[in-house]
């Protein structure tokens, strides 16, 4: 394998660019970027590239949109998680409870913060099951990282009660959940911090990597602001040796512009998801997960289950539909998790979920014809 092939994302884009109903919609999203370019032209003349004015503006706007007191722009969603854990004092020997059904970054952030990830199984809604969390708490447990999978906020009042009982920190992985609500609250309401990614594939996305942390805790916000910038109080004084993870000013400009469209982006996804739910609910062979009545789920990804998943995904791709699998292997079964000594069968729901999930495109550029084509293709598959 050559080094360039190790940049596997290149191949991923090549593989799917021939499909017409695609997960990647950025071409449409940024077809008219003149307003962004205008602001970038001003930025480059000022040279205000790191922690500039647009970062402060974006942070203020994002805090307001997510109903939090503070927002801190950082380099990525991964770093948002890592910095939050470090800011809460997570270190070597600590245990952090999370879901085995997530993207690698959740676990990467826990491990690189020095802690051991301890998994608790999920429920039918794909989110960590609060009852399972309580079973794996030990004297070493220091934090819980719930993931709001596919934009559905976890049962945070229940998780918050556990955290309070055992004096644990809560760092929410809200990378899928920009604009989501549950029990009337955004991510972060019941936590120390909530962490968002603005990777190009996220609902609120920038032109590269980017992330943001929200918190209601003044002291934590101050600490995170220092930690993302070498621990510097000012140019010449370093209060703590920390990290370098800043949201570029340029990316904050892109984020600010997209933030104006976030309601439309979210509403389109909810509308497309509701359409698929309705049209596919009765298809024998498809399982639509339970939808929480008290939630505004924002569908960063739209995930269904089928026992014939692999055949179905192939069938969809053959019919020009970019079906994906998020993700086929649970975290405890990854080669990287070998040292934690979990085995197959430890998390039966997560394992069954990984064996059967597939994702359909639900972004705001999907047309009604395309939605109909997706439904017809799936119905045809199961009728045959």
């Amino acid at each position: 394998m050559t080094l360039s092939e190790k940049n596997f994302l290149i191949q991923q884009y090549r593989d799917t660019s021939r499909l017409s109903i695609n997960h990647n919609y950025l071409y449409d999203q940024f077809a008219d970027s003149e307003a962004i370019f205008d602001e970038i032209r001003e930025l480059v003349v000022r040279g205000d590239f790191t922690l500039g004015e647009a970062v402060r503006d974006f942070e203020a706007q994002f805090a307001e949109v997510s109903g939090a007191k503070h927002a801190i722009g950082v380099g990525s969603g991964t770093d948002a998680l890592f910095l939050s854990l470090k800011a809460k004092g997570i270190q070597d020997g600590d245990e952090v409870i999370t879901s085995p059904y997530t993207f690698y970054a959740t676990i990467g952030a826990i491990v690189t913060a020095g802690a051991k990830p301890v998994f608790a199984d999920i429920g039918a809604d794909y989110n960590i099951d609060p009852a399972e969390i309580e079973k794996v708490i030990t004297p070493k447990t220091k934090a819980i990282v719930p993931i709001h999978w596919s934009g559905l906020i976890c049962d945070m009042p229940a998780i918050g009660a556990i955290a309070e009982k055992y004096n644990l920190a809560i760092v929410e992985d809200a990378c899928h959940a920009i604009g989501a609500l549950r029990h009337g609250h955004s991510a972060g309401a019941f936590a120390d911090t909530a962490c968002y990614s603005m990777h190009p594939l996220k609902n609120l996305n920038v032109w590269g990597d980017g992330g943001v942390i929200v918190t209601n805790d003044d002291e934590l916000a101050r600490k995170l602001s220092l930690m993302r910038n070498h621990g510097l109080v000012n140019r010449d004084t370093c209060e703590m040796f920390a990290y370098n993870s800043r949201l570029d000013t340029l990316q904050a400009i892109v984020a600010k512009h997209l933030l104006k469209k976030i309601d439309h982006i979210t509403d389109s996804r909810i509308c497309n998801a509701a359409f698929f739910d309705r049209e596919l609910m009765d298809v024998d062979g498809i399982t639509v997960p339970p939808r929480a009545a008290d939630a505004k789920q924002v569908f960063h990804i739209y995930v269904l289950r089928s026992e014939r998943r692999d055949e179905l995904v192939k069938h969809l791709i053959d019919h020009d539909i970019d079906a994906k699998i998020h993700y086929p292997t649970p975290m405890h079964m990854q080669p990287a998790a070998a040292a934690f000594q979990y085995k197959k069968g430890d998390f039966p729901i997560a394992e069954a979920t990984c064996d059967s999930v597939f994702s359909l495109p639900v972004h705001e550029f999907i047309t009604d014809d395309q939605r109909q084509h997706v439904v017809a293709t799936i119905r045809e598959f199961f009728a045959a």
Partner: protein
Amino acid sequence: MTVTVPFVAIGKQYEEFREEILQVFDAISKTGHHVLGPHLQRFEEAFAAYCGTRFAVGVGNGSDALTYSLLAHGIGAGDEVITAPNSFVASAWTIANVDATLVFADVGDDYNLDPEKVEAAITPKTRAIMPVHLTGQIADMAAMEDVARRHNLILIEDSAQAVGATQNGQKAGSFGHTGCFSLHPLKNLHVHGDGGVLTTNNEEVANKVRQLRNHGLINRDECEFWGYNSRLDEIQAAIASIKLNHLDRLNNRHRQIAKRYGDALSGVVRVPVVRDHNQPVFHRYIIRHESRDELARQLVERGVETKVNYPIPLHRQQAAAGLDYKEGAFPVAEQQAREILSLPMHPYMTEDEIDHVITSIKDIATTL
């Protein structure tokens, strides 16, 4: 007439490359392919060729290049890493970040680690030396390589200030096991935000860093080890490629300005010491004067912006309290911290601006 001489002029460089850069924004934003794509690959190949190394790996910033250099060589808890106390804080925190013990050694007249002091600081726990090519002049790498070889140590070059600098014709970043570069906006080769790149001749290290920067992934669905997320964005890589084509010319302008300063100010203030066989790139042009603060104050009055890189040595930072270094532990670095002053330095300085800086320093120095 009031003359103002700014310390840097990032905006002026943009004017030079404006059309090319705007095309990059437009082209990449249209594809929607922003992370780990063909522009990064092209920049990595060009940068490796420029530095004379087999591999270059783009990362999110210079600090992460240092962190991954340490991790890729298995350096961690219980290990000691020796570096300079007069650097930017990132050299120090990256060592602390991998749980290794931070050990400082004093510097020489050239602001770089003194090889004899390095050797004196070596213990059985020492695993690596991290020389910082401060101001854009390469540390004495023949001596560093000798020390590293004799004690079987990893050599990590903090080349953040030294892109394009040479020693005996060899480029910064090609001496050590890895070379670590920042592409921060203030650097000689810079992007429009944070960025970094790591060089190495070791394929295993290059592959490890490529995984470390991307969640430890082998492919989309398989994770070999838990890693980080620190990638050089496609847009930034494309901008870096554009500027790399012009780097030698821009660095030569730094050298010309340094020569003008040196010729005029030698004997007035202490001008930089350039070691034999070195071609620095003068990321910073640092003079020394006993009445530094007064000199700086009066220069501001004359519209000349200066900086101090850096006024508080790392071992005297609050963050270093746990290391128990006392005032006086590194007398050379401490003395320099009281006297150093960085003069305006960027490729777009006009002859009038250079003259104004020189005349002002000469005028003020006679009164101090």
